[in-house]
């Protein structure tokens, strides 16, 4: 199922599809390894729902929901609608 990093449930895994956005932030995300094909693991949310604690490539990074919105990912589990269809 295709979704955004910010919508992942804690404890779920996904693969990065693309990272959208401009300038400073996308460069930082690229440098940290949020490039297509990278496996990420959504570890937990902060008590306030944001930031999100994500682990990838052997380290952990906290990012806000807004940054998570820019990262499109593919999860292993089926979209609920799709699974009922077929």
């Amino acid at each position: 199922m295709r979704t955004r990093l910010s919508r992942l449930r804690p404890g779920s895994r996904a693969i990065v599809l693309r990272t959208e956005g401009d300038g400073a932030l996308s460069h930082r995300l690229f440098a940290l390894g949020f490039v297509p094909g990278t496996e990420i693991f959504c570890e937990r949310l902060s008590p306030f729902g944001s930031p999100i604690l994500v682990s990838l490539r052997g380290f952990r990074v906290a990012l806000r929901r807004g940054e998570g919105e820019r990262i499109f990912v593919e999860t292993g589990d089926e979209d609920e609608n799709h699974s009922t269809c077929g």
Partner: protein
Amino acid sequence: MKTIALAGNPNCGKSALFNLLTGSDAAVGNWPGVTVERKEGFSGGAEGLRWIDLPGVYALSPFTPEEQVTRRFLLEETPDAIVNLADASTPERSLYLTLQLLELDIPVLLVWNMEDIAAKQGISIDKPALSRLLGIPVLGVSALTGEGTKELLQAAGKAMRESRTGRIAWSREALPQCLRERAAELERQGERHSLFRAADALENDAENGTYASLFAEGRYSFIDACTRKAIHSPAGQAAPPALDRLFLSPVWGIPLFFLLMLLVFHVTFGASLFGSGVPSPGVFLHRSAERGLEMLSALLFSRMEPCFFRDFLSEGIFGGIGTALSFLPQILCLFFCMELLEDSGCMARAAFLLDAPLRRLGLTGRALLPALTGFGCSVPAFLSVRTLETERSRKIARFLIPFFSCGAKLPLYALLSAAFFPRRADQVIAGLYASGVLAAVCAGLFLHKITGEKDSQPFVMEIPAYRLPRWRNLRRSLGRHCGDYLNKAATVILAASAAVWLLSRITPDFMPADGHDSVLEYGGKLLAPFFTPLGFGSDGEGWKAAAALLSGLLAKEAAVSALGTLGGVEGLFTPASALSFLVFYLLYPPCTAALSVYWSEEPSRTWRLCAPAAWLLTAWGIAFAVYLIAAKF
């Protein structure tokens, strides 16, 4: 003399290695972004080397101030070699920067640190294989034990003698044509680092973002290939540390953090440790230091004939510095606790937990480090504001820092609270610290509102692994604080307390003042009307309080020295006015050293002019309110 730059990701141990090689005492912490300015040091040996410790970066992009420092140094001052220190437990991310450094026309050595930690996680690096893949020397070092530094120095010496032209290791054929052309053109113009500059221009092209992602993907696919060939790491993600179930717990995390902070204050200021009647380590240290200094004073001055000169030495010089010095051990106790929390990685967890509340102030979790540094000293705190993401948040953070009560203010808190609230000293002090934080929160909410811009700040922060605090780091950090304090005591505080003493002994027409009509008294009385509504400054001796506040502008400790020089605090305040005096002292503008750093860090003239006035007004307003309320009890 040859220059070697130390470059690497944040928190990979550059400063620790730098200290090891040069015998310096740069700050080391377990938080990304402890180094914000480049530091310089020298290593001995047959041919001396100049080492530059650069701020940690993930890439050479020009976006945050500390990234700019690193980038500018490498491009413009072109060192003879770069030692690229890399954390062996995060090899992939570390190699991203390596690939960018390889584009520069500078010899690069890749040096893995913390291989022992990596080995525990099952990660091992085949250095010869990686060296073949990257075309540069690859070594290992332990910044902790110093293992491998000899080999590092040898390899660096060899690399420096060779020249190197930059290359794009991650792509031999797929380079865009325009990149080759641009690089060739720059080279014809005699520009150094032509390849890096050409690639950088494409990558940071604001119009066309595709190259940025293209390059990033290219680098990481090369890194993935390197990883397959030369790095062995266990499949899948490592399990999160068990401690995080507690520290990052949605229920217990935040209360636990505040409990830890309370514990720190209790251990430093508590007159009775957990109600047992035994003084806390901080209080015990202070009392011992005080007793020692009293004995020293008696030893030095009891045999001298009473005269003007003896009084000057014993009251003006020794009394002033002594009062400030007697608090040094207690301040070190506070720093020790804070350092423990930072070194272990607890503070970075707190940044994760407190990011959401900080967002309401226009800040991010990253602002926690400048704020907590502010509890030590505002000067490094103003500097560490540079690690924040946007100029707007840096502006807000810089304004709030003086409200985080610096260590230099502590002696006066301790003196007054012990004199006027003997049973509740630690509660009064904790309350002062809390009011400072509260003032910062209110000011932050206000500034966030008036500076507009509702769009959220970006926040991306690495959460480091837990680390056992290292005694060597703690000792070094305490040594540095201790040195700074002694330095200040021997200069500013000495001068201020001598001046205060002299000014309190002469009249405006240069006659000896017999306790009355001194220059200081005139000055203090001039300011008195300003403080009268706050409950001090008006009656008989009140001018002494105003004089203390005035000398506190030179250095915060000078206020307590001044009170010491002028004959103590007894009878100077009522409990209510002591409280309002403390609150005013907590919030009024920082010392001249801190102010000058504020002015050099703050780019906007309006802010430079308005901030000190705003601090003064805030201090007065809140102290006034506190006095009105406290006087009712």
